[in-house]
């Protein structure tokens, strides 16, 4: 504030030129500073060149444009004299934009699609994969010796089949088709052992990509293609399922079933509603959201989880606050012996690794070997019953969380003058009254933002639940949503821990969590002055 006033006063005098946005800083720094700047810019340029090369090889012009734009922006910001604030903000903002804002926007766009294991890529890919998958060998079909290779990196480059036919001629088969290659070295087993421009995959590398291999076929003509059988042979066969663009359908020549494309759901369906496994990604609008809000089974698990999620975050925040504040009050007396020792021991849980401690609590609750059952002589399945599991998760979190509150409350208590409490007591207030009406209100001024952020943190406290119960226990009639599941663990399981990855649903859930947290934060922060006083 004061700064603004100063700037205003000086410019009112006689502005020789418009003031630079950053204020009245000296034009140039020291020579050393300039050298560091040049070195960093040089390093950044090198990074840009490194980033462009693979994009150029792949012919990704949009990517190149983006890299050039970012490098240009950096040059402009650090060479211009009128961009002083940007010089300080740009590094953090670039990371923020690339790895937080962009993923958030991407999540939002994914949430209105049906992206999942059966719905990746476009329709052409789905058709190619359906046809390739259905190739079966015909009588007396040509057999090839096979070597799996790639033109890119062994983990993710495009697959190439290096094939040798019975006469020893070598071919390279890609998704586009079969081409002959000259100068390939063919080993004694009849397989290609070396070919210029191709990286041959080792058996382990091939194994790692066996799923892709299953769906890979080299098209050789109308409805015919070469597929692998095992890791070292391939055969030419005909596809039993063939796509016909005229009727936009796939016909299975063996069973005679016709599968019609449903371009709204992104898959081929027959008359009975059976679908082919390979589908494609389509826009489904708000269907994913509706799925969680209105579909009876999913809506009931969604709202149960949401309710528990709020109860969990609230009770952990409340208990952590009460315990932390109580301990701080007990220790808030100067003459207590062993105060330092108490403080160190009480803060100990906070200084331990929370990840390891969650796992430790899980094992202490173990039915057969756990500490609690052995000490108490019980055989309770703590984590197997919904309510004891919930209590266990809350208990572990209170243990980990109260030291932080204790530290914050101690700091806040020390900032409150002791005379205030003493004055209240002289006026006849009891200790409880003076705490309730003098200390606590003052304390809450400092603690409210901390409580809000603790609530928000615990609302999405993935580790707390995943590491102790993994969301369980699960009831037999609803194996996807557990009793201690938070929305975030539920989302994680949908995306990464189910048999089929449901990215569309998971993204929609993420967006809903975002909306819930924003509403709660706006309500709670709107009442504090934090937002109004941004200066």
């Amino acid at each position, binding site marked *: 504030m004061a700064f603004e006033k100063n700037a205003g006063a000086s410019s009112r005098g006689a502005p020789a030129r418009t003031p630079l*946005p950053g204020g009245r800083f000296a034009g140039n720094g020291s020579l050393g500073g300039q050298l560091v700047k040049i070195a960093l810019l040089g390093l950044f340029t090198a990074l840009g060149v490194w980033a462009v090369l693979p994009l150029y090889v792949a012919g990704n012009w949009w990517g190149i444009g983006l890299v050039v734009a970012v490098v240009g922006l950096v040059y402009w910001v650090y060479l211009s004299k009128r961009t002083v604030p940007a010089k300080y903000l740009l590094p953090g903002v670039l990371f923020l934009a690339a790895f937080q804002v962009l993923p*958030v926007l991407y999540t939002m766009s994914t949430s209105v699609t049906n992206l999942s294991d059966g719905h990746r890529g476009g329709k052409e890919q789905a058709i190619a994969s359906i046809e390739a998958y259905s190739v079966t060998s015909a009588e007396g079909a040509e057999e090839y010796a096979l070597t799996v290779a790639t033109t890119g990196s062994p983990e993710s480059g495009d697959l190439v089949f290096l094939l040798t036919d019975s006469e020893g001629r070598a071919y390279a088969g890609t998704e586009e088709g079969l081409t002959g290659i000259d100068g390939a070295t063919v080993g004694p087993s009849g397989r290609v052992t070396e070919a210029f421009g191709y990286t041959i995959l080792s058996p382990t590398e091939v194994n790692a990509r066996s799923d892709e291999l299953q769906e890979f076929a080299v098209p050789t003509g109308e409805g015919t293609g070469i597929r692998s059988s095992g890791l070292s042979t391939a055969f030419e066969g005909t596809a039993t399922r063939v796509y016909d663009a005229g009727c936009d359908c796939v016909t299975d020549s063996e069973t005679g079933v016709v599968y019609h494309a449903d371009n709204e759901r992104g898959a081929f369906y027959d008359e009975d509603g059976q679908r082919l496994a390979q589908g494609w990604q389509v826009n489904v609008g708000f269907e994913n959201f509706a799925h969680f809000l209105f579909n009876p089974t999913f809506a009931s698990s969604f709202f149960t989880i949401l309710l528990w999620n709020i109860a969990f975050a609230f009770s952990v925040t409340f208990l952590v606050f009460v315990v932390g504040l109580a301990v701080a009050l007990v220790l808030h007396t100067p003459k207590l012996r062993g105060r330092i020792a108490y403080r160190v021991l009480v803060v100990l*849980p906070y200084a331990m690794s929370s990840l*390891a401690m969650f*796992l430790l609590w899980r094992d202490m609750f173990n039915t057969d070997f756990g500490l609690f059952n052995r000490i108490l002589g019980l055989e309770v399945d703590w984590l197997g019953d919904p309510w004891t599991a919930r209590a266990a998760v809350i208990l572990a979190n209170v243990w980990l969380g109260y030291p932080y509150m204790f530290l914050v409350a101690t700091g806040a208590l020390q900032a409150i003058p002791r005379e205030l409490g003493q004055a209240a007591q002289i006026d006849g207030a009891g200790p409880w009254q003076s705490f309730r009406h003098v200390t606590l209100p003052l304390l809450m001024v400092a603690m409210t933002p901390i409580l809000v952020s603790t609530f928000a943190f615990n609302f999405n406290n993935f580790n707390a639940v995943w590491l102790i119960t993994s969301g369980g226990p699960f009831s037999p009639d609803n194996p996807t949503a557990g009793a201690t599941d938070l929305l975030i663990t539920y989302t994680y399981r949908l995306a990464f821990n189910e048999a089929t990855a449901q*990215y569309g649903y998971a993204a929609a859930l993420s967006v809903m969590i975002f909306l819930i947290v924003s509403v709660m934060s706006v309500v709670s922060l709107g009442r504090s002055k934090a937002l109004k006083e941004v200066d």
Partner: protein
Amino acid sequence: MAVQTPGAVRAPYKRTTGVRLSLWARRYGWRHVVMLAVVAFAVFPVLFVVSAALNPLGTLSSAQLWPTGASMENAVDLFTNTPFTTWYANSLFFAFANAAVTVLLSALAAYAFSRMRFRGRRVGLIGLLVIQMFPQFLAIVAIYLMFSTLGDYYPAVGFDTRWGLLLVYLGGALSINTWMMKGFFDTVPKELDESAQMDGASHAQVFFRIMVPLVTPVLAIVGLLVFIATINEFLLASVFLRDTDAKTLGLGLYQLVDSQRNANFGMFAVGAIMLSLPTLAVFWFLQRYITEGLTAGAVKG
């Protein structure tokens, strides 16, 4: 209030031992009782993990609350049977690198927000708060899909690499921490840097020579918080690091007790202590900043 009549002479009051004891009990005694209970609650899991680490049998079922023996067998097992040193190095790399770079990036931004007036400043500050409501790990699906593509172009930042995950972590560098820092920067008198400017210091010199030494407590505390958060991060790491050798110690420990909960518990306990050591050490060195730093941003808010 009753006024003492000057004529009344009171016998010199002498406290008996019993009275003194009850006075002590009323003032301090109950505090000790409460604190002993709290300390017992705070310490017993830590005691258990230490005892399990020293337990020669190394199983969960044989571990007692109080150490029954002292053996290094679990530690030896952990070092020989698992890629412990690689895991540990990975954990420390992420924690230190992320803490250091985050503190730098966040302090730079906080300096601009605190000391300069520019267009979009208010929007930027509020935007930082808003983006906080969408925590990075909520976008995990998008990050996963993004890096599947990115890894094809740049294997150096793909899955199972240190740089890829570090980049993702750095996406969260500007966060609520920047607010906390800005609050602390605001408490440094503006006259200090203004007079330096008068003497011809550039903005970079003001930042590095004047501001940074004055705001060390908040830098230390943000570094500590980021360090703790990173070393305990599980979600993003579990999606990014799938290869055994690329895992962090936290992921490794999870895997260790996931498959063999009873038998590997001794090894897990050693690992848990090792994972806590860096945090304890950082805590120890930064303890004098902790109370000051934790409340600095809060009181302002």
